[in-house]
């Protein structure tokens, strides 16, 4: 939501669950912490890299309904990998 700072004193997305789309085709769902020179720092992250055999839309829908199946307590998505960031709540059901 534009203009809404979820955690005052931090970036607007801090603490918000986001989908980071990667240049490699991978997608990362987790709580956004901050963006630094190295990349995007996230907490409690699940990764879709096609390995599950599930399409990205189906995988996102599953994460949305049943919650994020955490694979990494903390993950830094390298800056060169980050193609886009959007709120997970806006992802398809």
């Amino acid at each position: 939501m534009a203009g809404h700072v979820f955690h005052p004193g931090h970036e607007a997305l801090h603490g918000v669950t986001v989908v980071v789309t990667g240049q490699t085709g991978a997608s990362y769902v987790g709580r956004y912490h901050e963006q630094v020179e190295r990349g995007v720092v996230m907490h409690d992250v699940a990764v879709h890299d096609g390995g599950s055999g599930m399409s990205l839309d189906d995988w996102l829908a599953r994460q949305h309904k049943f919650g994020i199946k955490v694979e990494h307590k903390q993950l830094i998505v390298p800056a060169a990998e980050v193609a886009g960031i959007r709120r997970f709540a806006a992802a398809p059901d």
Partner: protein
Amino acid sequence: MSYNPLLVAPMREEMTQMGARELTTAADVDAALGDPKGTTLVFVNSVCGCAAGNARPALSVALRHPARPDEVVTVFAGQDLDATARARQFFSDYQPSSPSIALLKDGEVVHFVHRHQIEGRSPQAVAADLTAAFDKYCGATV
């Protein structure tokens, strides 16, 4: 990590004041959820000032709706660890997050609100989702 009881006391009170029953032990949870009849809402409380700070008022608004669960109970993630772990076993198909809200009917999860469905939304918006679920699963009380 458990938090300072003084810090979480107002968050507990906010729940009990709206009519939720606190479950602080695994035995409490078993007593409340072990006999699955009717509708029970389980609120997984959290110290997160932003997500839980919206979720608690959202539930308070939703509980003023004519249709509402038969029972409203709450466990406190990060504080009452055993109770929270036991409660989550009753909705184990759903990944743990806090705050979160589970609506059970006759022991089955019929509606679940994850943290990511609360973040950044107004209490009124979250309450509207909850009352829609209450209308669907709890029936109007007269």
